[in-house]
């Protein structure tokens, strides 16, 4: 553990995820189904460290193309089924690489571009009550309304869905504590709360939130040691440095937590030998926690990191390039 940020080790760690050695590990294959998100976490972390050029852009774009299914959605890996989660990750990666033209350029027999097909896939997942299913099998979860809004906003196609109805449904997921759950009546959870708050931000409907009430619940995620948990009485985990911090950022209450203590706690989640971050100090690292640890440090204004957008979960300069309005970022 260290209070130094071992940037070069993190870059090397992320690059090693694609190595032959990595492909020999159980972890590589146990996460095969979510590879698209794994790549997004890795590429985004590199971007926040100013090291995007270390990623194999062409290789990744070829991989993404192979994962688009005929429905227009993207799968977590080649030969897997399409899902909203991996569709969002695919679009996010392409936006980071400024490569949406790759999709725009692919036109099928009916004259539909790769982008039209993504929009079709996502919009067809919206249910009559405004919620979104993750795929054709119908699981409903607030993660998916976030994926839909983020993805379509990045493509400039929010017009393809009923945003108002989506907001109506999100409101039903709000609980007595001001936070949000997976579905209406579900217990508040920081991950789901991030999804709902970020979706509301993208839809410009933050008026729905009681910021003081939610801010209290979110700030109480900080435990005495400095880390953040996802629900009352749970253990801290570095990924909550994203879910909780981004929500606090959006409602402008990051100052309600002890930022110095959190910074120290996140840094202690590094493995200074191998690079990467673990869920908590001393555990094994993985790329998921690496991205969220770095993103958390970015929110906390740790030096030499690029600003990350709390709703789109992308580097701010990337979003500024796309011209999407970011009202919750104060200049």
């Amino acid at each position, binding site marked *: 553990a260290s209070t130094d940020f071992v940037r070069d080790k993190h870059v090397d760690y992320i690059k090693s995820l694609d190595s032959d050695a990595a492909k020999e590990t159980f972890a590589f294959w146990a996460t095969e189904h979510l590879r698209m998100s794994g790549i997004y976490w890795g590429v985004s972390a590199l971007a926040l460290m100013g090291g995007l050029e270390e990623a194999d852009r062409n290789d990744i774009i070829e991989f993404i193309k192979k994962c688009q299914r005929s429905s227009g959605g993207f799968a977590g890996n080649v030969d897997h089924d399409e899902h909203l989660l991996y569709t969002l990750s695919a679009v996010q990666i392409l936006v980071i690489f400024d490569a949406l033209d790759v999709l725009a350029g692919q036109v099928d027999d009916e004259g539909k571009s790769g982008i039209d097909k993504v929009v079709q896939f996502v919009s067809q997942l919206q249910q009559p009550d405004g919620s979104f299913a993750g795929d054709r099998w119908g*699981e409903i979860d607030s993660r998916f309304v976030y994926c839909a809004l983020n993805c379509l906003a990045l493509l400039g196609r929010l017009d393809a869905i009923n945003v108002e109805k989506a907001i109506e449904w999100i409101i039903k997921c709000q609980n*007595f504590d001001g936070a949000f759950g997976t579905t209406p009546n579900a*217990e508040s959870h920081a991950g789901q709360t991030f999804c709902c708050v970020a979706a509301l931000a993208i839809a410009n409907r933050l008026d729905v939130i009681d910021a003081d009430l939610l801010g209290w619940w979110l700030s109480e995620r900080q435990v005495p040691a400095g880390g953040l948990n996802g629900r009352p009485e749970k253990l801290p985990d570095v990924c909550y440095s994203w879910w909780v911090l981004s929500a606090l950022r959006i409602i402008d209450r990051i100052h309600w937590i002890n930022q110095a203590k959190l910074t120290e706690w996140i840094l202690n989640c590094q493995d200074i030998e191998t690079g990467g971050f673990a869920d908590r100090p001393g555990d094994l690292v993985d790329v998921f926690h690496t991205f969220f640890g770095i993103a958390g440090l970015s929110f906390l204004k740790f030096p030499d990191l690029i600003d990350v957008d709390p709703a789109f979960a992308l580097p701010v300069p990337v979003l500024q390039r796309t011209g999407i309005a970011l009202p919750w970022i104060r200049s």
Partner: protein
Amino acid sequence: QVNGDCYTMWNFRRETLDFLLRTESDLASVTKLLKNELNFTQQAISRNPKSYWCWNQRQWVTAELDKLSGYDWKHEIELCDLMLTADSRNFHCWDYRRHISKHCSSSQEELDFTQKMIEKDFSNYSAWHQRSKLLPLINPDPESFKEALKQELELVQNAFYTKPEDQSAWFYHRWLVSQIPEV
């Protein structure tokens, strides 16, 4: 068995079972297939109690069994009782319980269940949360709702006195007080 989150495999199983359900005319063999899948989901859930995909599969199988020949949903309550004894904060299980309880359990019975959970452990935020959803359902009339909340104040005060460092009661208390202006 190796990767409970391999969602494409769960999709494949459902597609296959669905095909067999539609093409196989023998009710007994089709029921057996679904019951095998039900057992398989129980193993999957035991190994991966926090996997969305595993709980989804069980939701699908029980719905198919119910369509086919009716299903005794009390089995699912028993599964939830078991899983919540192992981990009283497993939100996948609480969500699943909310989903199936409409078939076989009244709001009052579910409220009684949360009371048992809280008496076992005051820091069960999941149980307090569930009460916040059940009380308005059981007491749709504003006056009886306020009376029910005043009784909740007593319950929450027991929690404070027993375990003042526990957060759940304080969050719940804030909500109660906000609902009863005169308190």
